[in-house]
């Protein structure tokens, strides 16, 4: 039986790399096809990756916590007969610059003249979902001829190297292109630096195409200085994308936040009335679905709140797909409940519970986090009175739910005790004016305060 290479799968259209967060098998372990082999974390989702073949984990090539590009071989599954020492032709290349040094050390070791006796069969890790794989009409798969010392480059790069008398092996493991290819940018900056091998790798982050880079990026913050003892922990992939996304959103939208106080008596009552009935259908009813449904109805009335900005164009979205922010140990994820406007309360509650549960169990698919048109976040779950959320781009508004608390309120000149909530709406003033935002929130308020019981 031929060995099977396990590769880092592509978990979404714009995903170029993933971090192995945990190996679920050790070298030498027996494994069945489709049995979970490792856990990954990408820009979009966390997921368990099943083994593409049955056999024995012959080699694990990427350490936990290491980030590699898609299609990088991360493990080899063998039938248990061949020796595990049989290294594949190429050492996996870590994409981050912290790893470049290490990889450079490993590279010569991993490319001795002795090739593997039996070419491992390449099989894509069968992810729980079929992540879209780029069209490969013209793309080579595998049989690429490497340059000297197994450095992957292009005809242009080889010509530039020749012209400048550069030995490409000096750049081995420092390429910033797909699969560690040496690109035009790499060789040019190498030549510019006068051929010092250290610098090009430092440019690696700049070559990432997934994140939009504005023309005039703000100056980098000053280097962190602190006199006391510190612990330095590299950010996870998820943390990095959250950071990037939040700053990008602040830079993109003109954020304004408005607040509304809402009497929750009727929805609390409606929830009490329906709870037993919902439980018979196996659905736990929280208050969130009420807010989601009220928002969906209001979004239908104020379609601008359900839009996006595309250059000079406003894109109104017909479906109402509401993202629900779910807090995880590792960060935050926003699974999306699709077509909320076509669901009843039971359907909404069911869908929220489903995505919430799958978010916590790392079973979300790329589709689950895509195409949201509006987001609801719940800072109140830990008691916050209210929050001022950041818009989830490319959406134009996000609603925050504060904690529901019984408060003394004045109704018809009498003091009553009512469960109250403060809702906030952060909206993009580029396309939504304050009056519209407030009318939208007044509609949400009206829906909630007049809920049929």
């Amino acid at each position, binding site marked *: 039986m031929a060995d099977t290479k396990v590769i880092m799968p592509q978990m979404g*259209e*714009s995903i*170029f790399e993933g971090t192995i967060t945990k190996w679920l098998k050790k070298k030498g372990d027996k494994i069945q096809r489709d049995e979970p082999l490792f856990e990954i974390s990408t820009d979009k989702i966390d997921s368990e990756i099943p083994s593409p073949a049955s056999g024995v984990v012959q080699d694990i090539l990427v350490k936990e916590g290491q980030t590699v590009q898609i299609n990088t071989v991360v493990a080899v599954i063998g039938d248990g007969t061949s020796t595990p020492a049989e290294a594949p032709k190429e050492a996996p290349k870590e994409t981050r610059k912290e790893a470049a040094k290490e990889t450079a050390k490993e590279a010569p070791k991993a490319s001795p003249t002795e090739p593997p006796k039996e070419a491992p069969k390449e099989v894509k890790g069968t992810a729980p979902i079929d992540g879209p794989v*780029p069209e490969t*009409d*013209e*793309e*080579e798969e595998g049989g690429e001829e490497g340059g000297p010392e197994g450095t992957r480059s*292009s*005809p*242009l*790069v*080889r*010509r530039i190297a020749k012209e400048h008398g550069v030995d490409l092996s000096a750049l081995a493991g420092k390429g910033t*292109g*797909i699969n560690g*290819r040496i*690109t*035009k940018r790499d060789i040019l900056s190498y030549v510019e630096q006068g051929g010092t091998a250290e610098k090009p790798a430092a440019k690696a982050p700049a*070559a*990432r*195409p*997934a*994140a*939009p*880079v*504005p*023309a005039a990026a703000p100056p980098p913050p000053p280097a962190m200085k602190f006199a006391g003892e510190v612990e330095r922990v590299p950010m996870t992939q998820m943390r990095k994308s959250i950071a990037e996304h939040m700053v990008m959103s602040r830079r993109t939208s003109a954020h304004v936040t408005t607040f509304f106080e809402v009497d929750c008596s009727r929805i609390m009552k409606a929830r009490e009335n329906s709870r037993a009935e919902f439980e018979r259908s196996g659905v736990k009813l929280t208050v969130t679905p009420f807010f989601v449904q009220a928002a969906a109805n209001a979004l239908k009335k104020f379609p601008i709140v359900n839009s996006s900005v595309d*250059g000079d164009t406003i894109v109104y979205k017909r479906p109402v797909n509401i993202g629900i922010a779910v807090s995880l140990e590792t960060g935050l994820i926003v699974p999306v409940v699709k077509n909320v406007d076509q669901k009843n309360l039971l359907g909404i509650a069911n869908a929220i519970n489903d995505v919430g549960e799958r978010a916590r169990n790392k079973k979300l698919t790329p589709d689950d986090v895509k195409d949201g048109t509006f987001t609801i976040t719940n800072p109140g779950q830990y008691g916050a009175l209210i929050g001022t959320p950041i818009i989830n781009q490319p959406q134009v508004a996000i609603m925050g739910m504060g904690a529901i608390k019984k408060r003394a309120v004045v109704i018809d000149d009498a003091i009553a005790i009512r469960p109250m909530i403060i809702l906030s709406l952060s909206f993009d003033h580029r396309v939504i004016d304050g009056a519209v935002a407030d009318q939208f929130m007044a509609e949400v308020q009206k829906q909630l305060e007049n809920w049929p019981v």
Partner: protein
Amino acid sequence: MALTTYVEAIRQGIWEEMEKDERVFVLGEDVGIYGGAFKVTAGMLEKFGEWRIIDTPISESAIVGAAIGAALMGMRPIAEMQFADFISCAFDQITNFAAKCRYRWGAGVPIVVRGPSGGGVHGGPFHSQNPEMYFVHTPGLKVVCPSTAYDAKGLIKAAIRDPDPVIYFEHKFLYRRVKEELPTDDLVVPIGKASIRRPGTDISVLTYGAMVYNALDAAKELEREGIDLEVVDLRSLLPFDKETILESVKKTNKVILLHEDTRIGGFAGELAAIISDEAFEYLDGPIRRITAPDTPVPYSPPLEEFFLPKVSDIVNVARELYAY
């Protein structure tokens, strides 16, 4: 000054050439009384009379055959195909006769065969095709595909004045969708010259016809990510502007070939071969093609939308190529 549409620009070009040169005349189905199915010849019957604006029977072969005969007798005919799809009926006249006359007998055939091509207007399989490659594969012909009102006018004039047969493919999606201010002087766009619609540094998109606009839209979107596309509008497919093409590729080192025509045997394949032959050492990534799939143009609007290359296709391929 008023904006001139693409279709009006063609009409103006023909009009001006007819005023200037009495050998120029138009023949085709419904070009006279009706003014042409897309109104390219509107008002011409009244202005130039029935000897110069000739309504013909429904026979493309006869239309082109008559045009060739008139050209050999010293005239400058413009033959209209009501839809470019039906040019296949005149295939033999064009490829075996008009294209070979100069080589065989030293007799030039200065005809223009023009007609609306292209999809995006829910015309179905017989009214949406891009038949340019049948003719690009025929030595002796010239083939042009303008994308702007300026080029539409400049190229129809160049085509009329050309001493050899020119196949002039108009894009019907652009007829009334693109317009611009045109200079009042005699404007001629030389056949065989490309135009750089948007200079850029990262990836060259070589395209023509309506796809020029998709490429420009994609460039606008990618600009925000710091990816700088160069959009080259070929304008002429035969002869084509090899110099500009290779210069652009040598500058950006990455190339996307984009057309609305289907994939196999499309112009992109030819360009890919030329770039690989003559600029291989300038390539920093694979040559990528974005084309319609190899099927007839579907009638169903959602299917047609799927069939035609989209801005998002270009954006996605460009992102991959940029990262390569």
